[in-house]
């Protein structure tokens, strides 16, 4: 039996937002979150009640992030730099911007592996099918990502 979708939003919404922020940065994250949960709501009645809801949501978020990435690639306006526009999502120059700068320097798969494992708490066996690689490769991507992050984002690591 499926529980009311409101409970899914309450239980997993914050986690998905953290994942989106880590993978896409503070500006794109809220669009990705919104598209993820709208798509999830649409598909929800067909979800098998014994499904792993966390993995289901992260899989949708992963696809939505890819969509955004492709849209940005088609539209060369906002490719390399963070667009400098007003945002309610963080204070410029604050630590979340610094963290995002560090995350942004990682190869995309490493960033995804790091977010899905360390922020969503998913095991590599579930991350591998989302990334389209093996469990070993997913684990290595996350480990490499964390190692690089520790090297370039010392402020967070030294706390």
């Amino acid at each position, binding site marked *: 039996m499926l529980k009311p*979708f409101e409970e899914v939003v309450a239980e997993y919404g914050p986690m998905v937002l953290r994942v989106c922020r*880590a993978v896409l940065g503070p500006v794109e994250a*809220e669009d990705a979150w*919104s598209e993820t949960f709208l798509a999830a709501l649409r598909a929800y009645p067909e979800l098998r009640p014994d499904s792993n809801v966390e993995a289901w949501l992260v899989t949708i978020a992963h696809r939505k992030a890819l969509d955004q990435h492709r849209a940005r690639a088609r539209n060369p306006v906002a490719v390399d730099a963070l667009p400098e526009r007003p945002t309610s999502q963080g204070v410029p120059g604050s630590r979340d911007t610094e963290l995002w700068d560090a995350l942004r320097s990682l190869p995309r798969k490493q960033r995804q592996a*790091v977010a899905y494992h360390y922020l969503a708490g998913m095991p590599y066996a579930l991350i591998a099918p989302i990334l389209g690689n093996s469990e070993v490769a997913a684990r290595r991507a996350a480990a490499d990502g964390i190692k690089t992050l520790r090297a370039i984002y010392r402020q967070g690591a030294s706390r």
Partner: protein
Amino acid sequence: MNRTNQTPGAEGLFDALPVLDEDANRRLHRRLVDAAEAAGILDVAYRTIDTPVGSLLLAATDQGLVRIAYPNQGHDQVLAKLAEQVSPRVLLAPRRLDPVALQLDEYFAGHRSAFDVMLDWRLSHGFRRQVLAQLPRIAYGHTASYAAVAAAAGSPRAVRAVGTACATNPLPIVVPCHRVVRSDGAVGGYAGGPEAKRTLLTLEAAA
């Protein structure tokens, strides 16, 4: 799975990403409700309101008001039941309930004697529904006996079934099962408890 704390191995790294960002969650929730409504996939919208008979849960489909529930009925259980019987696409979305919430406020202030909202009857079937359909004929401030309602529904001997129909009324207050009382003058049972029934009857008698 580990949502509230850092997964071991990344201690301190992600402190800049708050585990819980209330402002963002509220903003995103509103945005989801708007998008779901626009896409026509907000199957059940709900909210609660505070009233003299406790916190009432109000739920509506796109057809109309589908459920009103008293605190003693367990709002979480009622929502779970709606997810099962109507659709699991259930969201806290007050706006769809604004008209009925306003009318209930007016009713509890003694300024309203009838409700003008679309009703979705899908949670009531057969004879029970036939009985409930009779109830708006009992005027505000008046009562009728279970036996009289049974007769009006065309089954004079189905007094007990009328009691069951009232007890399982998915839309109490708006569909006024509280106006059905025992022939001996006792208030009888009520989905919201006898105290709530007395409160409603007293309110209507005074207005």
